[in-house]
């Protein structure tokens, strides 16, 4: 077992597992964010955000999530470096063979998502946790951070909206390959199941990206 996660296949299995974990996280994240545009009031979102920020179990999971992100990124970089080293002299002429297009650009889409992640943490998470200055709101006699207002104010700025949408599209490209590729890495290959997994990956990517894009758009063009 000691060599398992240092081997090329072991590293990919770890990355695939973490990737699927992050894929589940994205669904939760999207679900809570959608509360902002589903309801007239920001209260449901603020209550949900409060729960996510204070519940002990969720707080433990938050650490797992940060660890997951860091490991996925670290392993991704290590694997990419080794892959680049494996071909010191590149070809003079290349030909686009019939391959999974986005699989060739995982590191490129990853860099865009990575930059976004840092900015995104500064925009919201660190505002609430460290910098303070988040407005407060009273719901049913209890004081909550008005994180919803923070989001509304952010997404009133045109370039912020454009930047977020731009990144979501690249996140979609990353997911399009990542989702189905993870199952192949786990060794899951089945005559009927694999096409279902591939289709689910496309549906997931489109739905999640469309959902995330919808939020800043609705807020920007709404009242």
């Amino acid at each position, binding site marked *: 077992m000691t060599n398992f996660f240092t081997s090329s296949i072991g590293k990919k299995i770890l990355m695939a597992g973490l990737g699927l974990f992050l894929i589940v996280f994205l669904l939760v994240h999207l679900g809570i964010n959608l509360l902002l545009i589903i309801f007239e009031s920001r209260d449901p979102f603020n209550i949900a955000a409060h729960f996510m920020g204070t519940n002990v179990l969720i707080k433990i999971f938050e650490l797992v999530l940060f660890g997951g992100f860091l490991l996925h990124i670290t392993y991704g970089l290590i694997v990419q470096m080794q*892959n680049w080293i494996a071909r010191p002299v590149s070809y003079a002429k290349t030909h686009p*063979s019939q391959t999974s297009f986005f699989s060739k650009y995982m590191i490129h889409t990853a860099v865009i998502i990575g930059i976004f992640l840092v900015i995104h943490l500064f925009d919201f998470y660190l505002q609430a946790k460290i910098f303070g200055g988040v407005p407060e709101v009273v719901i049913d006699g209890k004081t909550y951070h008005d994180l919803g207002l923070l989001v509304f104010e952010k997404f009133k700025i045109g370039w912020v909206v454009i930047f977020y949408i731009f990144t979501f599209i690249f996140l979609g490209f990353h997911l399009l390959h990542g989702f189905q590729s993870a199952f*192949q890495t786990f060794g899951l290959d089945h005559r009927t199941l694999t096409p279902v997994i591939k289709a689910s990956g496309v549906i997931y990517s489109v739905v999640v990206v469309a959902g995330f894009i919808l939020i800043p758009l609705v807020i920007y063009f709404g009242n």
Partner: protein
Amino acid sequence: MDFTLKIWRQKNSGEKGKFVNYKVGNVSSDSSFLEMLDVLNEELILKNEEPVAFDHDCREGICGCCSLYINGRPHGPDELITVCQLHMRKFKDGDSIVIEPWRARPFPVIKDLIVDRTAFDKILMEGGFVSVNTGNAPDAHAVPVPKQNADLAFDAAACIGCGACVAACKNASAMLFVSAKVSQFALLPQGRVEAKERVRAMVAKMDELGFGSCSNTGACEAECPKGISLTNIARINREFIKAGSA
């Protein structure tokens, strides 16, 4: 047919190489790519120039020696063939053709278009066999094998170890080759006995030799002259998980 060839020339593994342009004329459209190179080499020899070194042996698509990266594709512009099975009619008269050696750290260039593929042999030495006592060959029906597994094992065993998968892969990964070798044994009862040790040892050697990892891109499968399927890579991943968790 007339062609302009842009060929990688390199004296030996220690020296730097470069592309050199050659013109070759009066090539029959029915000649193979290697025969076209033979014509060029005869002309070079008559001109007292060093002929272009390239690997070849059986010239019938079985040995896996001919390893040329032609116009951006291992074994050139056709499906399920090796370079010796590539005909010049696949090109247009007057075409410019770029010919490069396989590019991968574990496959150093020996000379011109010839690379050292000993790395594949080293991987095979780690487990590309079944340890059995010598003696009479057993009857074919002595050990029952499900037909489906026999067919899949045979498909995997069709790999000729040419290295097109490594050449095509953006990561210079040998996963298609190694997975074919692991699969052909893992699918048969005789091979199952050592399945765990085999996959561990072969993957460890593959990593040690400096091949990249698999991005599930599928370029290897698309360029493999023997149509080795990506399902073998799923199988090696499965086998590796089974071996690691035991």
